[in-house]
């Protein structure tokens, strides 16, 4: 069997080269995501078998069953998937432009920037009765702005005759601490302080997602994802390093900047709806890279799917295993992700 299959259409005007192995892994993980999806739909205080869950989704259940599935579980599951995809793709892009496997959006403060913006947004645009005075549609934009500000700050502050990736991580850790402090500060100022929700949201949870959230998040994620796939060739060049990228004629800084904006957009929209679900942006691209190598045409789809699986699994476990208590998904992703980060650090010990 050859390693690649080629797909050509419109008299060879459009052609793709498909890496068979990557394609296989992508399909396998897609199926796995489907299985987790069905199990997650069925899990909860009302248990359904995956097959029954599938039937209910097709509309063959009692009105009570379809209420549970359609109104309560589905939006939450969809948000988990969208958030997982966004974080994983953003992480993969960041790792490419920063050329640093440790560049997780959480550890370098970008997620934190989005959190600050969201808490500030809630503090400014809330009236006495804790109701929002502007449409919640603006929240992803606020999160995006927050994430972008931190990303640009990070870039500027770490710049010193070029960008050393370790300096970047160190400056990022500093910014992370600052965003944590600012988030706490704005929580005290704003009405979100009263809500016990705040603590859960900061940890990262998709609790209480509804269809209107899905309606806002889905188009954003899909559009950004498409842009990411179109830009894969630039990503591949970025990973070769500055000199080679310049040598092959890439407009390095401009591409790097637009890629940075792309990843902050993904992170911002994810954080706006799920808070800081940590370490997904670190783990998913790493696992994907282990399986299919670092060509971004293969890497991006697979890490998106793995990200979705991670968040969905974490949320499903969090809302079912410890009933009646709900554990935020972010607790699980951090509990797995932080040791993974340490392991990466250990592997890099002689680098």
């Amino acid at each position, binding site marked *: 069997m050859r390693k690649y299959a080629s797909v050509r259409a419109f008299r060879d005007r459009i052609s793709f080269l498909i890496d068979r192995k990557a394609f296989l892994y992508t399909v396998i993980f897609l199926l796995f995501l489907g299985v987790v999806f069905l199990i997650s739909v069925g899990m909860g205080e009302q248990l359904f078998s995956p097959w029954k869950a599938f039937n209910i989704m097709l509309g063959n259940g009692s009105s009570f069953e379809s209420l549970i599935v359609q109104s309560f579980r589905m939006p939450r599951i969809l948000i988990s998937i969208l958030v997982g995809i966004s974080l994983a793709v953003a992480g993969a892009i960041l790792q490419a432009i920063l050329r640093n496997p*440790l560049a997780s959006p*959480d*550890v370098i403060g970008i997620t934190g920037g989005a959190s600050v913006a969201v808490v500030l947004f809630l503090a400014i645009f809330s009236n006495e009765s804790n109701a929002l005075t502007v449409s919640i549609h603006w929240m992803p934009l606020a999160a995006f702005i927050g994430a972008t500000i931190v990303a640009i700050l990070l870039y500027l*502050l*770490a710049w*010193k005759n070029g960008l050393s990736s*370790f*300096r970047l*991580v*160190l*400056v990022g*850790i*500093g*910014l*992370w*601490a*600052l965003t*944590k*402090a*600012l988030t*706490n*500060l704005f929580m*005290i*100022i704003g009405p979100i302080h009263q809500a*016990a929700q705040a*603590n*859960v949201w*900061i*940890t990262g949870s998709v609790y209480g997602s509804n269809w209107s959230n899905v309606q806002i998040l889905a188009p954003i994620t899909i559009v950004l994802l498409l842009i990411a796939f179109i830009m894969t060739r630039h990503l591949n060049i970025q990973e070769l390093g500055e000199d080679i990228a310049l040598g092959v004629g890439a407009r390095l800084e401009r591409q790097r900047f637009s890629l940075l904006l792309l990843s902050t957009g993904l992170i911002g929209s994810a954080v706006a709806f799920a808070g800081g679900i*940590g*370490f997904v942006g670190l783990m998913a691209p790493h696992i994907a890279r282990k399986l299919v190598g670092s060509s971004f045409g293969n890497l991006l789809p697979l890490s998106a799917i793995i990200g979705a699986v991670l968040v969905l699994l974490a949320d499903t476990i969090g809302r079912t295993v*410890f009933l009646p*208590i*709900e*554990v*935020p998904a*972010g*607790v699980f992703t*951090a*509990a797995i*992700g*932080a*040791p993974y*980060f*340490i392991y990466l*650090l*250990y592997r890099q*010990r*002689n680098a």
Partner: protein
Amino acid sequence: MVLHSNKSKLVGLIIGVLFLILFNFLSIILGYTNITIQTVIDAFTNFNGSNEHIIIQDVRLPRALIATAVGASLGIAGALLQALTRNPLASPDILGFNAGASFAIVVALMLFSVTSLQATTWIAFGGATIAGLLVYFLGSIGRDGMTPIKMTLAGAAIAALFASLTQGLLVMDESALEQVLFWMAGSVQGRKLEILLAVLPYLAIGIVIAITISNKINILTMGEDVAKGLGQRTMFVKLITGLSVILLAGGSVAIAGPIGFIGIVVPHVVKSIAGNDYRWIIPYSGVVGGILLLMADIGARYVLMPEEVPVGIMTAIIGTPFFIYIARKGGKLA
């Protein structure tokens, strides 16, 4: 380095102590309830049970003293850690001590219902020790030994790990959240004098150790090989230094919760004033640390009047630019 001769350093230290006393005094009179100097003097010489006198004796005075003790301990702990790890970014919070102690206390409170002050203090020591050792170990693996960058990254990862575990435990038990949240924010406000008195012996021992071994630390900072060549038992010195750090950092966390960045800022400020001799750096760090935390605490009362900002937030906002500045300098000692 501003001060060169021993005489000028001594004068500087005395001026520092005077400033420390001044800020203690300011900490007592400034705040939501404004208090005149005369009332303060009256509250101690001729207590009449009035509202203001009670505020001074039960609220303002403990708060000022606790800020002084915690600030001094964190400053000295930072100086010792930076010498021990030869890492200018080292401080109790960056290396995960605070997160470890917080986690241990939450576990003890929730799973074993430990509430006694003494037990909490020891548990904080335990947590700080475990986290510190983990970070030390992780930061030292590899061929090139302990580098500032590896150490900082390991600290960030361990801190994130413990923080998420703590968060997870707290979400499961909301009544515990209420008990702990106040403490977790990192504040010197609303703590009784008894808390300070219970922990003070450990802090005092830590400080005495630090001052006693300061000349050994001078030799240690020349590098392991040189120190060994000069006949120092480096392992012993490191262990004693570590013990002192744990007493100081763990004790501070037990009193005030996690307060960041004092330990990183203070030693750098001190070195620019008093040079690189640890016999001076240790006492100076104590004094400057106390002043810095008192200042941050007074500031925390005015940012959001009439509400108060936990002082941990203030120190983070002041300290981050400093941290980034040092990181940009490429981890060279000041």
